[in-house]
């Protein structure tokens, strides 16, 4: 089966969106995961709820919130447009924003669990050896949570590939602009006599999902081996 140019567009857009989604989420997710795992502060519960909200809210509701907040006249969207000339409405950047919000809780959760699994006593020992806290994070905590970060990235990537509700609500379903795999499948399902085309995209989705998980498994196993292998 050879892939048509239209299908290739959909696949490339989906991959681009998913990679950007993981890319822009990673550092904030790392920071928030660390705060939730290692720090006590006022409003911690509120932050935790806020991060997890996209998991429990209907995706359409999240999409609507994004429309209100990130639209060109919304408080955040207007500011982005005015200061950076970035508009998120009806283009792929909007898809990245929608998928990032939906994937964020999964990435944060995986990293947070990894940080909680790191023995705090190791960090204390590193401090007594004279390394400042940030260096301790870089040399001890970060390497030890690498498998967790990889797991979080895979989850986030898969979530971004599969995101539907928030995306279609926020940036609509525009071929070549905002139409990722699930949106394309949805469109074809509305079209008469397109079963073959649907099946082709379904199979592509399954293959991409398997490839992402296989790659992440391989990276995780490699990093665990490098870390001394006794976890």
């Amino acid at each position: 089966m050879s892939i048509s140019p239209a299908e290739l567009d959909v696949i490339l857009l989906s991959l681009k969106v998913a990679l950007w989604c993981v890319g822009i989420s990673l550092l904030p997710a790392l920071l928030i995961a660390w705060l939730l795992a290692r720090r006590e502060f006022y409003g911690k519960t509120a932050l935790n709820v806020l991060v997890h909200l996209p998991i429990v809210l209907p995706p359409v509701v999240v999409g609507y919130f994004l429309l209100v907040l990130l639209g060109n006249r919304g408080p955040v969207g207007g500011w982005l447009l005015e200061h950076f000339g970035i508009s998120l409405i009806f283009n792929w950047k909007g898809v990245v924003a929608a998928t990032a919000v939906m994937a964020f809780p999964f990435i944060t959760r995986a990293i947070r669990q990894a940080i909680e699994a790191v023995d705090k006593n190791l960090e204390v020992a590193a401090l007594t050896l004279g390394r400042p806290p940030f260096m301790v994070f870089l040399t001890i905590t970060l390497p030890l949570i690498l498998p967790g970060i990889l797991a979080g990235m895979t989850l986030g990537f898969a979530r971004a590939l599969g995101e539907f509700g928030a995306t279609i609500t926020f940036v609509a379903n525009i071929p070549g602009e905002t139409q990722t795999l699930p949106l394309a499948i949805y469109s074809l399902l509305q079209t008469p006599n397109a079963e073959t085309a649907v099946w082709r995209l379904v199979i592509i989705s399954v293959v991409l999902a398997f490839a992402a998980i296989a790659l992440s498994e391989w990276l995780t196993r490699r990093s665990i081996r490098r870390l001394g292998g006794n976890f």
Partner: protein
Amino acid sequence: MADIRLKKSLGRFHLSAEFNAEAGLTALFGPSGAGKTLLSQMLAGLITPDEGHIEIAGRTLFSSAKNINVPVHKRHIGFVFQEHRLFPHYSVRSNLTYGSGRRAGKATPVSFDMVVNILGLNTLLDRKPASLSGGERQRVAIGRALLSNPKILIMDEPLSSLDDARKAEILPLIEELKSEFNLTTLYISHSIEEITRLADSLLLLDKGEMKAAGPVGDILSRLDLVPYAGGYDAGTLVEARVAAYEPGHHMLTLETESGGRLYITGSAKEIGAAVRLRIRARDVALAKTEPKSLSILNRFEGRLVDHCSGAQGMEELLLNVGFPLTARITRKSFEEMKLTKDTPVWALVKAVTISRS
């Protein structure tokens, strides 16, 4: 060297400690729950005291009055924990050098090769901690702390997670490091054996309170401290020099500074060597006249200096037999022998019950 005065309350537990640690090894001794680890964590900066001050090598690390609280990584305190706490993703070599970028500690930094040689880590350098035995891991942990060039070394029950064989393997190494690097060390332990072997001075801590502080020999020969300094296993520390060797019987004759003579078994190599002996109070028997034809070799003539009643029908005695010696006998014997202060007595100690430190 170290000047420390601290107070801390945690719930209903109150810790109050005040002491000076000089160069050499100071042991912090007390039963579990005495507050030893809490105290060491306050020194390291892991827990903030309610009030007090910590001054180490002329530098104030904490002062509630002056509002000073130096963070952990700037305190220059080497820490060996109960568990090894090695970094699992680094090789032994990288673990050892993790803190060695720090130069401010001593004028002459501890040398990597020397530490590796003394601790016998040469063949382990490229291995990961997961593949080491318990004793090897703790040796690496000790080396790692030394190589961070600390001004003071705190060892918090470093042997408590090891079996007796591993303890016996590491104790002499700690002694060797002590004489090689002459680093001020605070050694926390609830084992009176380890302490009589290693310590120069002793701090007794019980239920958050400092019971006594001073040279280890003096503290161990104080009757009022018997309940805190070993209890059932309490005993005296005797420092002596090997004066003679009797080849036929592998017997050594030891002389204390004050002229006392002791006999233990040993080898010819030890002539001239300084040894530390521990004589448990419960291993000492008493007689009013010189006993004849007896298997016991160590017979010391002396007198009773002091006594007090101990636990469960026991009497704790302090004798002077050329050196201070504590003894524990039943109150029944004590009364039947009609012992009082200054009574001349003979103290008998079987050579085989004397522990070499």
